[in-house]
């Protein structure tokens, strides 16, 4: 009689000894039937296939067991949240749920945790979100031990929250501990350094959450491979008014002053002149990357690249923008406002001049917490930030977003709008976008507004 197939976990991989022939033939399998290695993420499919074939096996891979946990009371799920959970459940408890910011994605995750009842890992992009998730989980599951990976903490709990960085670094050792992995803002997962977090995890149950999964088919395919299919989606336009705050998007064009205009045109002419002379076309991502790569190799190229950056910064930092910003801050004095910039330097300039708190990646966690708490309580009525508040941070009281400058990323722009969409009393949200007229920023704005939320 043959020895049963044995499954083990080691160094982020699924080890199989005594594997049946069909298993050794699976794509990605390395070694021979006596000692086979597959990605840990193949665990669920291997177990299901073994069961389907009627093969006996000994599972020494997983180091987790069912939990006894009950979600604390609170408001019942909304209709679309129930639909999302049901769709995920029907897809084998694997897949991606897309909901706009403020629609309660983390609530869906809590429902999933309560349904699966397994030790779970929530993976998030920032430390701020780690704290936010831990607070939410503590309220939803008050009797469960919580853990944290990241921010100098390495503590496992029945429910653990980790940054993508920490998860990628530690999953080779800890990938056998979780039955469910939830990837918050899962559009980050396909990045080469982060996908390890999914590949090295045994977790048979996986939930991806995002407001902005993106249209790139390659990245969508990777999300399918690492988490599962897109199982449910609701958009901002479908939920605005009823479940999200209704909103206005207002573009405010400003003119460069004569000095700015002259410097802008000079820098732009220099940059474009180089592009023409060197034969570069930058109307595609490939073209731009080729320009950047090649430009760095010559003095002329580097100078052109610097001119490109100069003309962009002149547009981003037009003095008239600042005047408009001051008027908007005055107009919405009694509302909670978020001011977004493209870079930290601009954020600190605004903060200093207007005596407003600034949150960037330099801001320590304790100070961020203090500022956001004061903001929620109303002791502070505005916060200036560059990018760190783009994603996930829950500030329901904010009703006005002012984009002083930003990239052409649709995702960034939608996320920034999302910061003010969380339903709060009868608020009507406003997103102001201040743009330097007759500059490349106009095109940048058009690119980032290529989303149904802005139509």
């Amino acid at each position, binding site marked *: 009689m043959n020895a049963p197939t044995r499954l083990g976990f080691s160094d982020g991989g699924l080890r199989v000894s005594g594997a049946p022939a069909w298993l050794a033939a699976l794509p990605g399998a390395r070694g021979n039937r006596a000692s086979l290695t597959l990605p840990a993420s193949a665990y669920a499919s291997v177990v299901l296939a073994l069961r389907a074939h009627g093969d006996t096996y000994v599972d020494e891979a997983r180091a987790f067991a069912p939990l006894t946990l009950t979600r604390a009371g609170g408001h019942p799920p909304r209709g679309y949240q129930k639909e999302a959970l049901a769709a995920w459940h029907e897809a084998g408890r694997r897949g991606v749920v897309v909901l706009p910011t403020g629609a309660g994605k983390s609530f869906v995750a809590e429902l999933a945790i309560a349904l699966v009842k397994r030790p779970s890992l929530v993976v998030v992009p920032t430390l701020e979100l780690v704290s936010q998730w831990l607070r939410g989980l503590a309220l939803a599951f008050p009797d469960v031990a919580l853990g944290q990976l990241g921010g100098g903490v390495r503590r496992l709990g029945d429910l653990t929250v980790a940054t993508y960085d920490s998860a990628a670094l530690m999953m080779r050792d800890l990938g056998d501990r979780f039955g469910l992995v939830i990837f918050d803002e899962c559009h980050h997962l396909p*990045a*080469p350094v982060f996908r390890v977090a999914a590949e090295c995890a045994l977790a048979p149950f996986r939930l991806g959450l995002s407001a902005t999964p993106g249209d790139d088919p390659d990245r969508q395919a990777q999300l399918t491979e690492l988490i599962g299919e897109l199982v449910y989606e609701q958009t901002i336009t479908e939920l605005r008014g009823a479940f999200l705050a209704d909103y206005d998007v207002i573009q405010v064009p400003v003119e460069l002053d004569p000095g700015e205009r002259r410097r802008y045109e000079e820098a732009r002419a220099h940059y474009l002149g180089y592009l023409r002379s060197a034969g570069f076309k930058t109307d595609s991502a490939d073209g*731009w*990357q080729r320009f*950047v790569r090649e430009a*760095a190799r010559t003095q002329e190229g580097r100078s052109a690249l610097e001119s490109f950056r100069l003309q962009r910064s002149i547009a981003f930092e037009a003095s008239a923008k600042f005047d408009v910003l001051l008027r908007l801050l005055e107009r919405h004095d009694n509302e909670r406002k978020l001011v977004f910039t493209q870079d930290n330097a601009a954020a*600190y300039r605004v903060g200093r001049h207007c005596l407003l708190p600034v949150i960037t990646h*330099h801001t320590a966690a304790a100070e961020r917490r203090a500022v956001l708490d004061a903001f929620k309580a109303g002791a502070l009525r505005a916060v200036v930030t560059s990018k760190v508040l783009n994603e996930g941070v829950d500030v329901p009281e904010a009703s006005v977003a002012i984009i002083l400058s930003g990239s052409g990323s649709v995702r960034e722009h939608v996320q920034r709008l999302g910061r003010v969409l969380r339903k709060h009393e009868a608020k009507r949200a406003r997103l102001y976008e201040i743009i330097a007229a007759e500059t490349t920023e106009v095109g940048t704005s058009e690119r980032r507004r290529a989303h149904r939320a802005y139509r």
Partner: protein
Amino acid sequence: MLTALTDDALAVSRRGEALRLLPSDNRMQGCAAALLEVAHHAAAAGGGHVAQAVLARALSELRDPSGSSDRVRSGLSQTLLALCAVDLPPPDLDRTSLRLEVFTRAAERPFARLLAGERAAILRRIGESHGVSAARIDAWLFSDVPSERLLSLPAWREPEALVAAWHRLTLATLLAGSLSFRIEVEGFEQASSRAVDAVAQAFAAQGLPRVVERAGRVWRFCGLGAGGVKARKRRLAQALIQACADLPLERLHVSLETRWKDGKLVVLDSQPSHPEAAAVPSTLLQARLSGKRALRLALGGDEPLPRAPDKAQASAQRSLGAARAAGRATASRPTDEHAGPADNAPQLPLSLSEFAQSDTTQQQGWVLSERAAWPIDEVVEQEGARTLIQHVELWYPRMFAPWSPLRLPGSARLAVRLTSAASLLAPKGSPRALLGHIEVI
């Protein structure tokens, strides 16, 4: 002004100083350290503009002791000026609390009034409550934000430019008391991600700094690797170029990294499993331990730790200090540390006021503790940091030899003060305060 600067410098000393270790063979860095201290204390006393003025004067008399090119010298000057253009709040003033105080006070007023002049009034009132001017509060608001990027080059693929920039970086990194630095790239997300792995692999292959943390497009390194300073910089530059040569990165930023945790400087340890094991604590004893660890890092990781203090000697020195009689010190010092003070021997340690009044203290190196001044040799014994002090002794005469006495506005008086030799204490939340180990007054 110099008296005021001195007073402020002493005040900073009382609050604890940072360990400053520089390669003994690099006089440029030694020079920079000394000048930086001048500006540091000038900033503490009179603000950034005073620091700049003092520094500009000192730099004008600076001769290039290493014979390096003007380019490096120019880089040094710029670096120093950039680093010194920072006003320094007193360490008992928590910057986070100050910011919250300012912003919440401002939020109590209608924004329109803020623009109409209320801003200055708010800063003035807060300044009055802290005993400083509104301008100082204004300057302190975000001065702890590491905004300067020491190496920010579109031309970073030029080895010479990169090496020159590395010179500035390593200088500033060493000056900051932390041997970690941060590299940040701008460009497409995927290219940036690939750069993280490529640079980490290239550095690892050459025994260069170890990645201790990465977060998206930012990754941090610890240490400078083995070998001479120049060789290390060149290898770093080449590895960086090699790793990123084919990646479409728009820009590369390299900046020194001083990590703070719970108000304390975190010295990165060289043990992979404990990247942040040596958080600098607030007690002197523990600080000494951390200082030793930092020393080992500063010396390249291969040097033995400083020998533990000889308890009998330390006890004798304390007895010596306790038996000090009042009176003005003379130039000599005891040669037999167990003999006790002779009638005409210096009464050590000197009080700080004695030290300040003495005409002879400029003739040798002195160490200032919180309340007293000791000759360097005494501190060797008392602090038990022989290796540390030997290292500094080797270094500091070279540091000053080419242009000693360093002439400062209003006075030619010079004293080298090495504060609590192994102390890494630094005021809460102020990386700039790390600049307080060697002082020239």
